[in-house]
């Protein structure tokens, strides 16, 4: 937070930087119900291909390099047979 002359960043700039960050979070805020729905949809999609441990799922927002990211950690138990096949007919059967 020091500039070229070793002086601290002006308070007005600190305010602006902090505001930008907090507003980005505010504006991207999603209702808990929507988050749950999104989580369920993601689980449904992934479950077509792999068997997952539902109790160990983490599904949250993280702020990475001043950007908001949706981070999902989904423990996989096993891969379903045919699930990751390149064969299009195999995929269609689900």
């Amino acid at each position, binding site marked *: 937070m020091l500039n070229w002359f070793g*002086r601290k960043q002006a308070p007005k*700039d600190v*305010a602006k930087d902090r505001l930008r960050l907090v507003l980005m979070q505010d504006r991207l805020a999603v209702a808990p119900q929507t988050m749950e729905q999104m989580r369920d949809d993601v689980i449904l999609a992934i479950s077509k291909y792999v068997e997952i441990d539902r109790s160990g799922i983490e599904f949250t927002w993280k702020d990475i390099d001043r950007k908001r990211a949706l981070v999902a950690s989904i423990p996989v138990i096993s891969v379903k047979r045919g699930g990751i096949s390149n064969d299009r007919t195999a995929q269609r059967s689900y």
Partner: protein
Amino acid sequence: MSETIVITSGKGGVGKTTTCANLGVALAIQGCKVVMVDADIGLRNLDVVMGLENRIVYDLVDVVEGYCRLRQALIKDKRVDGLFLLPAAQTKDKNAVSPEQMKELMMALKEEHDFVLVDCPAGIEQGFKNAIAGADSAVIVTTPEVSAVRDADRITGLLEASGFSKPELIINRLKPKMVARGDMMDIPGILDILAIDLVGVVPDDEYIVVSTNRGEPAVLQESSRAGQAYRNIARRLMGEQVPFMDLTEKESVWEKIKRMVKLG
């Protein structure tokens, strides 16, 4: 053409009531017929800021519940022609009225006034929903502080979701000296972040405290800088093009040296 304008902010203590009182008086001085509605049920204050607290007989809830006629509840200001106040109830809570009832009330007030100014309570709960219910447009008051600007952004989002196409911003309590030193956010900085139109900037003015103590809005005092800013905003609300007051202040050389020595 009459208009209902809600004065809101999200955060408390940024000057909504003071803004409402001053704009009401300034619009009436310009010859408009104005009614100010205190929508802060349970925590009314517009009456004391206006110096009309001793003249309240009926209030907004009495009107809505049919205990009196609308005209009986309106307090006529004796200093300016064409200025009225509809006080909030002090002993009821904000659930005493519904958005539908507020809409109806606003429609009735619009019939007889050029401007209906609604003083919105702080927060985003029922009181806010009631206050915006019957309004045509919205003015958001903020101060150059992180918390107030953040809340102004939240309110902008909520207003837009409720169908207000272009809320306008008043930046209150700007301290030009602090801006010159880089200690306070400047006007372009705030506008850059909020991305809404500016309708006025009110400089910080000690006279506001005096005027609130006396119950005489600052616009009645010719020499008040804040009063001048409010007079300008009132004319802009009437559709006039009024140049913004020059609030830039240069730091003196001595002040600059002092600051550099302290921070360097």
